[in-house]
């Protein structure tokens, strides 16, 4: 297991987990979201291949209402 920070909270995930796995775990796989790992945008075509590392800072963002 490794520890990552996901949207500000620490999570333990399996070694070898990809961005897609994380989206699946939090239930975001069906919604349009943007993923940022260590301040770099991870584009959708990389979601299935990018393996997360110990201490990665992961942000999953979506559109919300705003003026």
């Amino acid at each position, binding site marked *: 297991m490794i520890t990552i920070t996901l949207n500000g909270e620490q999570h333990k995930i399996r070694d070898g987990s990809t961005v897609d796995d994380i989206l699946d775990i939090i239930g975001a796989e*069906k919604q349009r979201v943007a993923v940022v790992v260590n301040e770099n945008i991870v584009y959708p075509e990389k979601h299935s291949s990018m393996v997360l590392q110990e201490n990665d800072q992961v942000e999953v963002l979506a559109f919300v209402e705003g003026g």
Partner: protein
Amino acid sequence: MVNKYVMNELQIGTYRFSSRLILGTGKFGNVQSMLDAIRASGTELVTVAIRRFNREQIEHDLFAALSTIDGLTLMPNTSGASNAREAVRAAHISRELSGSPFIKVEIHPNPQHLMPDPIETYEASRILASEGFLVMPYISADPVLAKRLEDAGCASVMPLGSAIGSGQGLTTAEMIKLIIRESSIPVIVDAGLRSPSEACAAIEMGCEAVLVNSAIAVAENPEEMATAFAGAVKAGYKARKAGIMPRSGSAVATSPLTSFLGKAT
């Protein structure tokens, strides 16, 4: 450069919109009410924000909801950013999500008054314009800053009418007139408008569009209010094109000043 007097469409960069009303999507009671108001308004450009994905709101997919309306372009904002660096980052993420080149640069670090930070706003706008964004900065009604932002490559400037969500109306009207006089990019009043008459006045004075959120979203009937704002904006533009009469310092009679019932005048 936008020709302010012959174009019926709103042009921002190479984009053209048939409506001069831009809607914010915040504060609506529910998604259906927001969608009804957007449709009723006839707008083709709406603002959205980005925030952390919330699994509690998994069924609440704003992007999917807005996608049900044809011809709608998204203008993500950078709300939540407290400096230029954060705003630039928010813009990059938003473009990835929206596919839209529009970005409303909005940096207001003080939640008490939500006044925009001119220095951080300028810096973020300059960077994003150089990267090809159509930058729409939310600013105080400052003609000097507006001109600097135009020179930095912004697609528009969006001076506030009054504080965000305050409903105080066009308290900055005289400053906005100065911005319009000097500007060759669209000037769009953003924030503070309360009623359709204020939107009409903004367009009459030369603004190319208005951005309205709270006034529609918190109305008792948002859909009807959206229709009212749409009509007001059209009336304002028609009046401007028709040529609004000049003010006179004294009375000018509308009836002939000739003899009446035998009395000589």
